[in-house]
């Protein structure tokens, strides 16, 4: 499994339901990726800023790590785990 580190802004459409935030699709490099499954999520903190991370699957086997900055509302793609 090769992991490619990235740090690029993306546009995201997300669902807020029962106090949970779930990304539905994201737009990166002009392409829209529909999120079929959220494999996991976790939070981190830098100073007073909280980030929420998601490991998600779109079409294909690759896993995308997305992060959401709770203060600035900025989403980033942090990396891709390339499968196969």
């Amino acid at each position, binding site marked *: 499994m090769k*992991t490619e580190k990235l740090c690029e802004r993306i546009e995201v459409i997300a669902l807020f339901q029962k106090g949970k935030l779930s990304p539905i699709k994201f737009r990166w490099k002009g392409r829209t990726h529909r999120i079929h499954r959220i494999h*996991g999520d976790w939070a*981190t903190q830098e100073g007073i800023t909280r980030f929420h991370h998601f490991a998600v699957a779109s079409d294909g086997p690759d896993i995308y790590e997305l992060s959401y900055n709770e203060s600035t509302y900025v989403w980033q793609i942090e990396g891709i785990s390339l499968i196969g």
Partner: protein
Amino acid sequence: MRNKIIFHIDMDQFFAAIEMRHHPHLKGKPVVVGGGPGDRGIVTTASYEARRYGLRSGMSAYQARRLCPQAIFLTPNIHKYVDISRRILQRMREFAERVEPTSVDEAYLDMSDRVQTPAEIEQLAMKIKRRILQTERLIATVGVGANRLVAKIASGMNKPDGFTFLPPDRVIDVFRDMPVGDLHGVGRATQAQLERLGIRTAGQLAAYPLDILRRIFGKWGEEIRQIALGQGQDTVMVPEELPDEKSMGHEHTFSQDLSNPAPLLGRLHLLCERVARRLRDADMIGQVVTLKLRYQGFITRFHGRKLKDYVQHETVIYNVARILFQEIYDHRPVRLVGVNVSNLTSASGSGQLTLFPTGLRLMKISKACDQIKDRLGEKAIGYASGIYDTGSRSSSGYPRSSHRKNLLYRPFHGP
């Protein structure tokens, strides 16, 4: 007094399980969390599939790759594991008021007020396991006993996805044939000494004449015999019981990892002086000294001890900190060292006994430690299991075998 009911919950192959959950195609494959480019670094967790090839936590990545060339190596994401650990602890707190995490993947829960019968215990354990599985899609093993030692032995008996309850009447049976080296706190030096006496199992140790053990090992002889009998600490401490504002500490991060303990002890002495100065300025004394060590790869260990008397002077704090250091230091490169004094109380108003550097008690303690070290070798003084030993790592961070060298020796609690 009724026996307590202590649960030990151990997350199975925690780091690897999280990565397999986030990368489902890894399931069923030999996965190693740890290592790094060019096979430097160490294995923090090996999946069960990888363990079949002999891979273990603490092994070098180089050795791991030789044993299992097809293993998939993943860089650890400590922040992720810590946050998921935090969420699992929240789940556990739904079931128990007293939850004490002792590492990122292990916790003790006091269930004495919740359950009584073996059926109730099993039901509750299954409920907790189910809850963790449902919310985090992760598998835990639960061990239950009348104290922490027994609960931990129990959780180790049936892994992964296990449940074991060792009621007091079964402890002697279980311990009878257990190798003494498997007892928490019994290290290699003690093991060798015991084997020279013909003691190979916990059962043999428990049955051995106490006066001979006492003659050879001193007070330590009594304590290892208690361990062999399955006796141990049964208090579960809630982190809030050690509030931050009631402690004073300092730590230092080195610009590069230190392999040599000499400059490290020098720094520790300076930190103790700073803490002592703050205590004096605030007119406070403290009863608990805790050492913090961070090894290469972000593996942090806390090791503390509650003293019979209170401390304020830097020499006393340093002496205690140095003993704590010797008890846990395993010669891996160190990135950070810290010292903390807690359970503080007012120096003038308390009427508490304070340990002064020239005090007889301290002399005795140091002497006792030195004697044991002389007799059993430098590594014989393991670290106290118990309430302040919150950072011990088993399934990751450092070899499990070193974890087994813990002992219950508490120099400051002696009569």
